[in-house]
């Protein structure tokens, strides 16, 4: 084999030395997978503040500065945080302490910004997980403000949308009732409904039909007509507000 000039090996060795020197001098540029989050900017050149050699970042290194009992209560410098934040539940009500399950303190790639791990509700203690209001404020929109049921009836714990809502529990939308929401729920107010929104059920017509049978309390339609395919029980309306009061 033809012997290679040693100059090549010297150049390669020098490159290696320069590279290693650059890695130690500018680790945040040379090997960091992304800039650190705002609170940890000053640690940018001190990788071993969070990383243990050959073992990666560890929870114990996080909790050295961020005592779990203090998260959301006081800062790492001991300054009390005036109002209780959701961070308290996020950190003190977990089934186990595993900071890296949610935190990646290196910001994501500039192109995608997707290195942040989504919070998993599975990490919460059951009692906290079932009380959504511990962390989430109830929505004040017309869809939700009068809702009394558990959030989990419609929403999963992975994302707010898509939500599932079983309209049949309240009124069965059979083939004759495939109308737009606005037909029954005026002004997007889902806490109320009206059956008089369509031509078939004009108030005068409904009134005449019910009075003919001696039913006076016919304003709460779905109490008797939950399923339009099923005839309401005979005498039900009469018992509640009909002839009995006559």
């Amino acid at each position, binding site marked *: 084999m033809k012997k*290679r000039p040693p100059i090549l090996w010297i150049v390669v060795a020098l490159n290696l030395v320069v*590279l290693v020197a650059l890695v130690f001098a500018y680790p945040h540029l040379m*090997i*960091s997978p992304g800039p650190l989050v705002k609170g940890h900017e000053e640690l940018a050149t001190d990788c071993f503040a969070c*990383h243990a050699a050959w073992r990666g970042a560890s929870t114990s290194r996080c909790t050295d500065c961020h005592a779990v009992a203090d998260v959301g209560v006081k800062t790492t410098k001991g300054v009390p945080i005036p109002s209780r934040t959701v961070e308290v539940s996020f950190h003190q009500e977990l089934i186990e302490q595993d900071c890296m399950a949610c935190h990646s303190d290196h910001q994501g*790639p*500039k*192109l*995608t910004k997707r290195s942040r791990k989504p919070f998993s509700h599975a990490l919460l203690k059951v009692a906290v997980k079932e009380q959504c209001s511990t962390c989430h404020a109830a929505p004040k929109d017309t869809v939700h403000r009068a809702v009394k049921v558990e959030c989990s009836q419609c929403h999963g714990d992975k994302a707010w949308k898509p939500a599932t809502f079983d309209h049949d529990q309240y009124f069965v939308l059979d083939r004759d009732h495939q109308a737009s929401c606005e037909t029954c729920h005026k002004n997007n107010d889902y806490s109320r409904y009206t059956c008089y929104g369509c031509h078939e059920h004009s108030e005068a017509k409904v009134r005449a039909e019910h009075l003919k049978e001696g039913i006076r309390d016919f304003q709460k339609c779905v109490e008797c007509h939950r399923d339009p395919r099923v005839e309401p029980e005979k005498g039900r309306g009469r018992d509640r507000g009909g002839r009995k009061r006559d």
Partner: protein
Amino acid sequence: MPLKARLFQREVLPFVASFALLAALALALDGLLHLFDLLWVGRWLGIPGTLLIIGSTAYSLRKRKLIRSGHPAKLLRWHELLAWLGSLLVLVHAGVHFNAILGWLAVWAMLINVGSGLTGKFLLDRSRRRMEEARQRMRARGLPEGELEDQLYWDSLTFDAVKQWRVVHFPITLAFAVLATAHIVATFLFWGWQ
């Protein structure tokens, strides 16, 4: 112009196609991983990619007689295939993310290396055949051997220049090896492997 058409089909097109296919496939696979939210797969592809590239060096070791077994021609085909596939996986692993300089230098060194390999593979083959065809034509015309060498002087120089790809390919490989090793060591040093 049948000769030009043949050259284009046999040399230029495979060279461009091979490089373009590498880039297009890497982008397509990376796009799919993003689309299906499988970025973690790309993170691990660096390992099989590296192993394939290491496997491809069997030819280089055989050529330098550091190993004795294996048919050189077959090993060369494997060298080309494994290095290409390994580079593809490493490219997907790198993604289009502009983060650590070290990782980027390693990727660029790898791409230059693939480029030099493909250039050598296609251009060297082309030059050798062109030279041989010219030599045969001149012999057929009855040109004496001395005059024939004079006529082919510039072609010989060109051929020697093209042969330099080997000289270029090796230091680029070394640079790539050094950068990739530094990246791998840094990963082992700081990554959690959980």
